[in-house]
Every structure is written in C-alpha cells, then in structure tokens.
C-alpha cells in the first residue's frame, strides 16, 4: 500500500494494524490528530492484538532441554504432522533442535488421512529406505510397524520423566518400545452446562442411563423452540472412529476389549451385546437417525451449532467450541464418558494420540533418537500443550500451572489417562489390526442401522470372523 498518499488517519490506522506503531505512538499521534475516543480505542485494541500475536510466535515457548548431545554435521529427515496450523510450531521446534545440537533437520508433512499415511510408511519401510529417520505414528500402529522400528525403551528414560503407563504399554511390542508417546487423545463427553442447569440437572451424567434420561428430557423441552435439537451426538459411521466409540460402550459396560491381551476373542458376551443394543436405541431417538453416518466433524457440526446437549468426541473440539465466534462458548464443559450400570462397569475412554518412532533403516540413528527424545521431552511437550492444546503424555504436566491456565480442562483428563483410557487391541493383533477393526466397525454399524436386526447373532458372526483373523497371527 502506498502510505505516502494516504491521510494521516489512515496511515496511523494502517501502522497500528500492522503493529509498526507502538501503543504510545498511537496515543500520541491520535491526540495530535484530534481523533474521537472510540476510534483511538479501536486503534489501540488492534495494536494490542497484533503485538500479542507477535509475542505468541509459534514455538517461542520451547526451551531446549538440557543434556542434548552434540550432533554437529548430522542430517536427519523427519515426517511430522499434516499440513495445517501446526506446521509453524513444528518448524520452530525443529529449528530449536538444530540450534541446540548442530544437527540439520528437514521436516516433511505427512498425509492428512491416517490410512494414506500408514500406506506411505509401509511402502517406505518395506523398501528399507533410509530417506526418513524419524516419524510420528498413530497409537494403533506400533503392532504394524514394530519390525521396522528402533527400540526406544532406554531412550525414553533420559529425563527420568514419568509417561502414562497405558500408552507406553500400548507402544511396547514384545519388549520393544516402538515409539515414545508424543501427545495423546482420549474420548471425552462434552455437555452443555447451561442446558443442564436450565432443565434442573445438577451434575453431568455418570452412567449411560442417566445420560439417556437427561438427553431425552432436554431434547423434549428444547424441541419446542428448536425442532433440530438432539440429545446426544457421536460417531456412528463405518470407520475407525466407530471402533473407538463402540469400544467405550462395551468396556464401560464390563464387556471386555474385543480381543484380550492373550488373544482370546472376547467380544461375544452379553454385556458387549447389551451395550450395542443400547446404542442402537439411541439412533433416531436421542440421537439423529443420521448419526450412523457421522464422523467427528459431523458430530461437532451439530454440537457447535448449539443443536445437541451431549457429544462424545476428542479433545480437539474443546478449543474450537471456545472460539470467539462459537455460539456455545463458555456454555459447555467436558467429563468422562459415562459407564454402564452393571457390576464391572467402569468409565472408559478410548486412547488415541501420536508417538515418535525411529526407523530401523536410518543411517543417523543417534541423531534420530535424540530428536525423538527432544520432541517428547518435558519442555517441548509443555510448549505443545500451551501453544497448540495438545495433551501431554508426561503425567506431571497435568499439574503444571502454565499448562492448566491455557487449557483448564486438562486437569480432569489426568485421571482419564491414569485410570480408564482403553487401548484398542492393536498391539496384540499387530499387522492384522486393521482387519480386526474393519470387521468390528462393520458389524457394529450394521447393528446400529438395523441391517443386522439380531445383535447377538451378528456379534457371534463377528466373533467367528475375528477368530479367523487371530488364527492367522
């Protein structure tokens, strides 16, 4: 823009907006120009906003941890997150690592779709390519990728930090730690605090029965004004997300984890079947009929438009719901996913998240391991939590005042990871996990949509299928 020809007011406004003029300068020049108070106010807030944004340059909070080795001259290639808002932070993190160790890091984004990413990794690793030294892997892949990974069970202890046991166990295949937990995810229940209060409920539901009662009461009342209002939204499409949701239903009802640690196929049991039948009862009553095609973003679409009382989703929906343009901002909170009523009922939350893995075909194993240690270190995870709302995998960070100030709901999630977060049976079924999951979500989806009218028979058939898959292991 050509500021020379602009009026002094426009010029000042432009400089305030781009942060070139300081607060003091804006005030001085504005009073000299005799501007009205509201206009000066707008300029000042614009200036403050820009200055604030500049303060929060991505990765500025990262402190390089002590004890990193000197890796001068080394070069590594790493595959991190997908293209999107997280890239600047990751690039800053890589640069800090380079500055601290002298090792040159080339960062590449992985594909957005997890399936495509896994296929890409499988092709790279099957060719024993040394092009990639370290990469992030999904929590369900350690079993699939174990043959191609460097054992990190010693590397993880370098800071003496305590990582969540469940995740470390999940990532350990035959004694080999395939990846160091980087950040995590867990299924959580979102609820509308304002609507619960309005309709006389004091606390969020503890059991599925309570959730059904509250959801249908709130739905009935809210429908008077809003015919599109639903009690409860979740992920029911035939995809990996349904495996996560359905696993929570059956575990919370004391129904086991589909395939147990010792490879027993346990899914065909009355509690599991009852939990699927319960969920079928939600479709078209407290949940939209279309919920059997919903993924995370479909559920969030209904929820964030203010059209649902409850939602099961991952933590990412929290910061989006609190965005300044969100109609439910400050009107919701999160809690544990409800449990069943039976004897073995527990709160269960499916474990998600990403790990740092080092390729067995790397020619720079030392540098790659140091990078994995650095990315998962206390310092880097803290910055990731504060700046990008990623859930840390180190227990102590959930008590960190700075982390909690940025993400108040993290405190309540500590118990989730210490207690109930349930891993999908991916580690025991190793490279056949996708087959297990596909058979499972297909069966559950058929029960939900009513294509399989007899849930017990369909689950028995599923158990046969799973038995066939397990026998190939």
């Amino acid at each position, binding site marked *: 823009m050509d500021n020379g020809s602009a009026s002094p007011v426009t010029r000042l406004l432009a400089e305030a907006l781009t942060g070139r003029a300081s607060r003091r300068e804006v005030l001085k020049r504005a009073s000299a120009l005799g501007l009205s108070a509201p206009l000066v106010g707008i300029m000042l807030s614009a200036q403050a906003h820009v200055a604030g944004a500049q303060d929060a340059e991505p990765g500025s909070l990262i402190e390089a941890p002590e004890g990193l080795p000197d890796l001068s001259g080394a070069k590594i290639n790493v595959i991190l997150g997908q293209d999107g808002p997280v890239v600047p932070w990751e690039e800053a993190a890589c640069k800090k690592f380079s500055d601290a160790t002298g090792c040159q890091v080339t960062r590449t984004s992985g594909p957005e779709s997890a399936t495509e990413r896994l296929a890409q990794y499988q092709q790279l*690793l*099957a060719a024993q390519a040394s092009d990639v030294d370290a990469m992030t892997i999904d929590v369900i892949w350690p079993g699939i990728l174990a043959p191609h990974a460097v054992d990190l069970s010693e590397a993880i202890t370098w800071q003496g930090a305590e990582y969540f046991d469940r995740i470390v166990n999940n990532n350990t295949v035959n004694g080999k730690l395939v990846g160091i937990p980087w950040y995590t995810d867990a299924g959580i229940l979102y609820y509308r605090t304002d609507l619960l209060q309005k309709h006389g409920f004091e606390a969020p539901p503890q059991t599925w029965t309570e959730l059904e009662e509250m959801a249908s009461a709130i739905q009935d009342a809210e429908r008077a004004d809003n015919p599109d209002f639903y009690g409860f939204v979740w992920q029911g499409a035939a995809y990996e997300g349904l495996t996560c949701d359905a696993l929570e239903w059956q575990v919370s009802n004391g129904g086991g984890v589909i395939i147990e640690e010792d490879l027993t196929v346990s899914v065909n049991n009355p509690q599991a079947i009852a939990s699927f039948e319960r969920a079928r009862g939600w479709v078209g009553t407290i949940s939209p*009929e*279309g*919920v059997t095609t919903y993924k995370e973003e479909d559920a969030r679409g209904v929820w964030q438009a203010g059209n649902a009382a409850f939602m099961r989703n991952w933590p990412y929906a929290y910061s989006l719901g609190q965005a300044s343009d969100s109609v439910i901002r400050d009107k919701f909170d999160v809690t544990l996913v409800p449990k069943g009523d039976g004897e073995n009922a527990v709160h269960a939350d499916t474990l998600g998240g990403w790990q740092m893995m080092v390729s067995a075909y790397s020619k720079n194993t030392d540098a790659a391991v140091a990078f994995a240690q650095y990315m998962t270190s206390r310092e880097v995870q803290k910055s990731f939590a504060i700046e990008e709302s990623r859930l840390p995998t180190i227990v102590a960070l959930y008590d960190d005042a700075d982390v909690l100030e940025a993400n108040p709901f993290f405190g309540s999630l500590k118990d989730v990871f210490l207690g109930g977060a349930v891993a999908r049976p991916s580690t025991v079924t190793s*490279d056949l996990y996708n087959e297990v999951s*596909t058979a499972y979500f297909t069966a559950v989806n058929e029960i939900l949509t009513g*294509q399989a009218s007899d849930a017990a028979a369909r689950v028995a058939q599923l158990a046969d299928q799973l038995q066939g898959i397990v026998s190939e292991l």
Partner: protein
Amino acid sequence: MSASADVAPLPEVSTATQRRERPAGTLGRRRERLAWLLVLPSLLVVLLVALYPLIQTFRLSFTNTRLASARTPRVVGFDNYVDLLREDAFRSTLWHTVVFTVSSVFFETILGLAIALVIHSNFRGRGGVRTAMLVPWAIPTVVSASMWQWMYHDVFGVVNDILVNRLHILDQKVAWLANPATALPAIIAVDVWKTTPFMALLLLAGLQLISTDIYEASLVDGANRVQQFFQITLPLLRPALLVALIFRTLDAFRVFDVIYVMKQFAPETMTVAVYARQQLIDLAKLGRGSAAAVIIFLCIFVFVVLYTRLIKVEEM
C-alpha cells in the same frame, strides 16, 4: 494412422517387373512389417501401462501377499476367489454394483434421451440451455458427492427442508444416507443427476447425424410425431445409443468415487471397487484385493463381449 506414411518408403519395390515376378505377397509382407514397426511404440506403451499391471494383478490374486508385511507370501491357488464368492459381504457388494449399474444406466438413458430430443429441437436460447445442462457433468465427482452429502443431511439438509418444511410431502425428516433402505437409491440419484448430461451429449451427437430429409419425406407420407420417433429417430439412433450404453455401463460398474465420498465403507452401499480398495489399501491384503479387482475385470469383459456382439449384429 495416415495411409501416406506407409506408402512413402516403398518406391523401390514398385517396379513393374518385380510386381509381376513376385505376387502381391512381398509387398503385402513389407507393408505388414512396416505397419508393425509403426504400431510398435504405442503397442509397447500399452503393454507397459495396461498389460503389465493387469498380469501383475492376476498373479497377485493367486497369492496371499500383504503390503509391507514380515509374512512370506504363498501361492494359494483359487483360495482368494473361493473365499470371496463364499463371503456374504462380497456377494452383497456384487449385488449393489449390479443394482447401481442397471438403475443408474436405465434412468440416465431415458432422461438423457429426453433432454437430447429437447435440445435438438430449435428454440430460442438453445445454446444457453445446452451449456447449463452440462454443469452437473462439469463438477468433479468428489465435489458434487460432498455437496449432495450435505444436501441429504438429516438435520440441516436442503432436501429434507424442501420436502418437509416447504412442500409438506413428508411429515418428518428422513436420514437419506443413514437409512439402509434409502442410501443406495439416494446415491444412484446423485449419479443420475451427474451423468445424464453426458448421456444427453452423446445422444445429441447421434441425433445430429440423422438427416432432416428423412423427416421431411415421412411428413409427406403422412407420418405423425410418434411414428417418426419410433420408426425413424430410434432406429437411426441405435448405434449412438449402443456406444453410450457401453460407456456408461463400464463406468457404472467400476463406480468408486461417489460411493466412497458419501458412505465410505458402509456395508449397505459398498460396491466391488470400494471393496477392492478396502482390501488393497486399508487392509494391505494385496492378494484378496487383486482377486476382487480381477472379478470386476471379468464382469466388464463379459459386458464388452456382449455389447460388441450386439453392435456387430446391428451392422449386419
């Protein structure tokens, strides 16, 4: 290929004596050799990009190979095929594919023919209508499928809004894509919406080839519009119609994108191509996925043979 190209290098053989001593055979052989030489590059390309993958797919379909797996692949004979044909899930994908193909091609042909007849006639703004008609076909399938997915949405979709809130045809909103009974018909409707223009375009080309003299002559003979359509238009349109049918049937039988975008791996709408993708990519089962792909290939092969027979009969 142009005829002049293979004539050019031949002058040295064309002396009268040679031609008399050696019968046409030599010339024929030379010409044939040259023809082969000229065809060779394209033949190699076809072999490389079409035949090699095809043979590889056939070969893989008789093994239990997995992608990036530590398991050593084994030759399993026809096991993959036997398993597939025994599996209810796969048989239902075949059924969905047939239902999709037959109904989408049927409606596309009827509607396409109607549209072609309309825009073939003379009226003001015909150019504009022809262009407008092509819009659905011009939108990439992934985009139009996502668009329709939102339009079919049970809570805030425009289809429900029109049918329930405005026209009051239905009393309550329908989850078009979630309800197993309406999901496949809803997707077929999208395909019909999208591909009818293509059908109309092919048929329009056929209509434009029919000489107007014939219509004038039939008018003189006193034929009415209906007679004209069934006695003149339809028989003369047959070749174009057959070509259009072949195109569409082959395309519809391999349908992947519209179903994958709208329903992914949902069992009630899965077609053979979607099933093959699930086996090949998501489950890394190259053997079984290849077997499914070969089955699609064989089905299409049968279609092509039948159709080409039909065309030959026509030509006779």
